[in-house]
């Protein structure tokens, strides 16, 4: 049953299974294990980023295509839901419509970009997506009548999903069962389903072809698979998945703006998560996202402590200042590309 749910793609390492189970249960019981708004927010972000990073891995790790437009698709999903909620009021039909439209638009965009650039070299695609995504970001920031511009959109979601709604009067296990909790579980279970769908995709015959293309595109073509077609489909699927993750983000934050969905910083974050977690394995996305987001929240505290103890040395204390956490992750990123290209998952599996 479990093997079937995982599409036969077992973790293949005791250590990895243990870590994954820990993450699963940690996220499942997050509201009870780690009470407090900030930790619940971190948990929800982890769920959403797992889907986002996994969908990026479908492209980068499985197909071997580097795209810098993933945040664009993420943003399209988020803005789809947000715009529907703003214009149609807080209703479930608005959420459904916005999510579907966002996913469709993202898929269509991905199709157009794929048409233009997948025929040529990987480098071309990377540069092209970077340019298009940046232009999209600028455009969204400027069309303030439609997207709220730099300020973004704030909106209301159905009452049952807000903290004001109480499921039970009393606290259960010291936690208020309110609408925020319901939203968290909506995010959690949607993310879980999307992740399992992605796992299904990469372990299907289609996924095998993608891996063949990654290993040797010329040979895959010679065997009779249309490489361009497979690459385009992979691009579209990953864009749709990213858009769905974006819709979840819009639902969770009740706010959508360029900085939370479209910015290049998020793109870099996703890259770091995929590579550090492990390219070419969906579990890598899980580990990468969890590690990165926890680091983002807690490495800063650690660096702060370090800085205090090193306070007297001028340059060194700058290097370990809490704001420089990205410096350390960036170095880890470069090192992992050289010395363990399969990331943490590869290490745990001992390959």
């Amino acid at each position, binding site marked *: 049953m479990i093997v079937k749910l995982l599409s036969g793609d077992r973790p293949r390492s005791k250590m990895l299974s243990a870590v994954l189970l820990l993450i699963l249960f940690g996220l499942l019981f997050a509201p009870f294990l780690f009470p407090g708004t900030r930790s619940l927010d971190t948990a929800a972000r982890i769920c959403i980023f797992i889907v986002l990073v996994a969908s990026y891995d479908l492209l980068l790790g499985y197909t071997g295509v580097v795209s810098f437009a993933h945040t664009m698709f993420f943003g399209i999903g988020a803005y789809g839901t947000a715009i529907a909620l703003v214009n149609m009021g807080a209703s479930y039909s608005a959420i459904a419509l916005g999510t579907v439209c966002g996913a469709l638009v993202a898929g269509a965009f991905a199709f157009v970009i794929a048409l233009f650039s997948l025929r040529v070299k990987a480098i071309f695609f990377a540069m092209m997506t970077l*340019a298009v995504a*940046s232009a999209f970001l600028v455009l969204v920031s400027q069309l303030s009548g439609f997207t709220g511009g730099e300020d973004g959109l704030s909106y209301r979601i159905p009452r049952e999903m807000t903290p004001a709604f109480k499921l039970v009067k009393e606290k259960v296990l010291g936690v208020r069962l309110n609408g925020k909790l319901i939203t968290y579980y909506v995010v959690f279970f949607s993310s879980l389903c999307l992740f399992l769908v992605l796992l299904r995709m990469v372990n299907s015959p289609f996924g095998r072809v993608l891996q063949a293309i990654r290993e040797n595109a010329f040979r895959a073509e010679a065997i009779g698979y249309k490489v361009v077609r497979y690459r385009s489909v992979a691009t579209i699927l990953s864009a749709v998945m990213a858009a769905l993750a974006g819709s979840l983000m819009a639902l969770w934050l009740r706010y959508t703006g360029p900085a939370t969905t479209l910015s290049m910083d998020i793109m870099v974050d996703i890259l770091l998560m995929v590579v550090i977690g492990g390219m070419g394995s969906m579990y890598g996305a899980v580990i990468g996202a969890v590690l990165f987001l926890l680091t983002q929240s807690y490495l800063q505290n650690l660096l702060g402590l370090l800085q205090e103890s090193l306070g007297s040395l001028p340059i060194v204390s700058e290097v370990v200042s809490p704001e420089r956490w990205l410096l350390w992750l960036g170095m880890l990123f470069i090192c992992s590309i050289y010395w363990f290209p399969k990331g943490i998952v590869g290490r745990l599996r001992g390959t």
Partner: protein
Amino acid sequence: MSDSLIKPRIERPSLSQTIEAKAPLLLVPVLMVIGLLAIGSGSTWLTLTAAGLAMGMMIFIMASGLTVIFGLMDVINFGHGAFISLGAFAGFTILGLLGGWIESPSIALNLGAVLLAVAFAMLVTGLAGYGFERLIVKPVYGQHLKQILVTMGGLVVTQQLIYVIWGPDEIVLARPAAFQGSFVVLGAAIEKYRVLAIVIGLALFVAMRLVLNRTRIGLLVRAGVQNGEMVEALGYPIEKLFLAVFMVGCALAGLGGVMWGMYQETITAHMGAEVMISVFIVVIIGGLGSIEGCFIGAMLVGLLTNYTGFLIPKLALVSTIMLMGAVLMWRPQGLYPVVKAH
């Protein structure tokens, strides 16, 4: 047997073929004319055209390094933007130290300060390029995917190092006194600094063409672009050539960074990554690896950005993307694709 049976036949390209081959050269004047028609007012057009050409020249300076590096080594350096920022910060440090020279009305002192800043910026970015090539790019020659990822990592780390050295705040610095203000030509105001940018850009383009086409080094570089293995087989140290070109490319990024910084009068660690968008568009339009294509692409992007920035401000960046799409539909490899003999 008479010899007259075998006559050498020299194929002359037909007129349409000649036009087809030279067509990219016409793009810039065509765009200028369209701009004039759309804008209507001659003096406004002149101002915008000067601004567009100046912007194009600065983008060309930054993009030329990237495109030559790609042509020669098949490496796209996604960290190129970091060198732009690094150059700007290094140059501004010198300008900051020479505050007295900048404020003085003497053109000689002003120019001296700018030249020193440029020299220092190019030195710093050239040396940084050495480190970058040895540490980050060299281990992944020939593997595109890893190259993109690792140079992106290099970009992140370099940006963070800029924060470490210069602090997290942006630096604001006025241009040297001699380059503030503008000339008035035919009723159109043309900023002095833009004229300087156009002069430097043109000089660089001419110099690059001369070096590539008239010198032994240039010959080797062009041969390396076509077939690196063959150059190596003939006994030339291609690896040293790679390294030298990489350093020169990074130094050019530094030069572009200082100029862009003085143009904006504000610099941030992110500025390089932001300009890189236009740089990538230019390189794609021109055809990866081609200096001439890069030059034409940069002029087109500069002009189009300024024209649309005046006509429909919201679409300035999007219009360049559309230009890129149009060019790619016409020539899928860019205006002047570099032919590689593999």
